[in-house]
């Protein structure tokens, strides 16, 4: 339980809007990351996570609360786990950064 509290308190910072260029292709959002010159294809909820994190820093708990309504996932117990996994992916490619 204590571990869960720590995880939910981890902070994530998003990119600035100028750092990336997003193009909605329907199911997929194409993302050009200017700093790295790399192109990524993102499935939801990743683009939505990025949108909530533009130039901001939020904890996992705050991101969960914001997206739970948007995706109608408020009742799903493992929604935070899902978001944590997506955030980890986004961090791995440099679109989101994390701080303890």
């Amino acid at each position, binding site marked *: 339980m204590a571990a869960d509290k720590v995880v939910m308190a981890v902070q994530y910072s998003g990119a600035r809007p100028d750092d990336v260029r997003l193009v909605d292709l329907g*199911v997929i959002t194409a993302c050009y990351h200017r700093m790295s010159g790399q*192109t990524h*294809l993102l499935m939801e909820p990743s683009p939505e996570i990025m949108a909530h994190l533009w130039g901001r820093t939020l904890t996992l708990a705050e991101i969960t609360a914001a997206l739970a309504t948007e995706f109608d996932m408020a009742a799903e117990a*493992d*929604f935070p786990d*899902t978001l944590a996994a997506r955030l980890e992916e986004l961090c791995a490619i440099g679109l989101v950064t994390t701080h303890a």
Partner: protein
Amino acid sequence: MTDKPAKNPNGETAITESEMTASGLKDLVQPSRRRLLMMGAATASTIVSVKPAMAQAQVSILNCQIPVPGPHVGGQYFDTEGNLVTPDTPGAIQPPNRTYTGEQIKNALNGSWLDGAPDETSKRAYLKYIDKLQPGQSGFTCYVSIVNGRR
């Protein structure tokens, strides 16, 4: 999903759908939205990143060749891992001093014997040497186009 492709005008086996699709993309888009969100941490990566296409591999119909050793080796031998060592190093393996075609190396990677390799240890060493080649060294682009073709 197995296709039974016919021969195309080039006499090559036509490409199967599984070969054409970028890694994981087909699996990615099939699940319904809600199911994907539900998969949570258990899902494999949901981000597909574009990797550069190897222009040389796509365009080249040239028979490519890999000299073993390349000119940069200058008289050195190999260790069992394909690294360069001085000839007097214990266990050093003498390079075969010949040029292989891409086809020969591809076959050797698939388990067949390699002309000029006196034993399995030597053959492994030669293949590892090739695998360690860097851009600019003789044989690098040839090797890349073989390896890309196998994936």
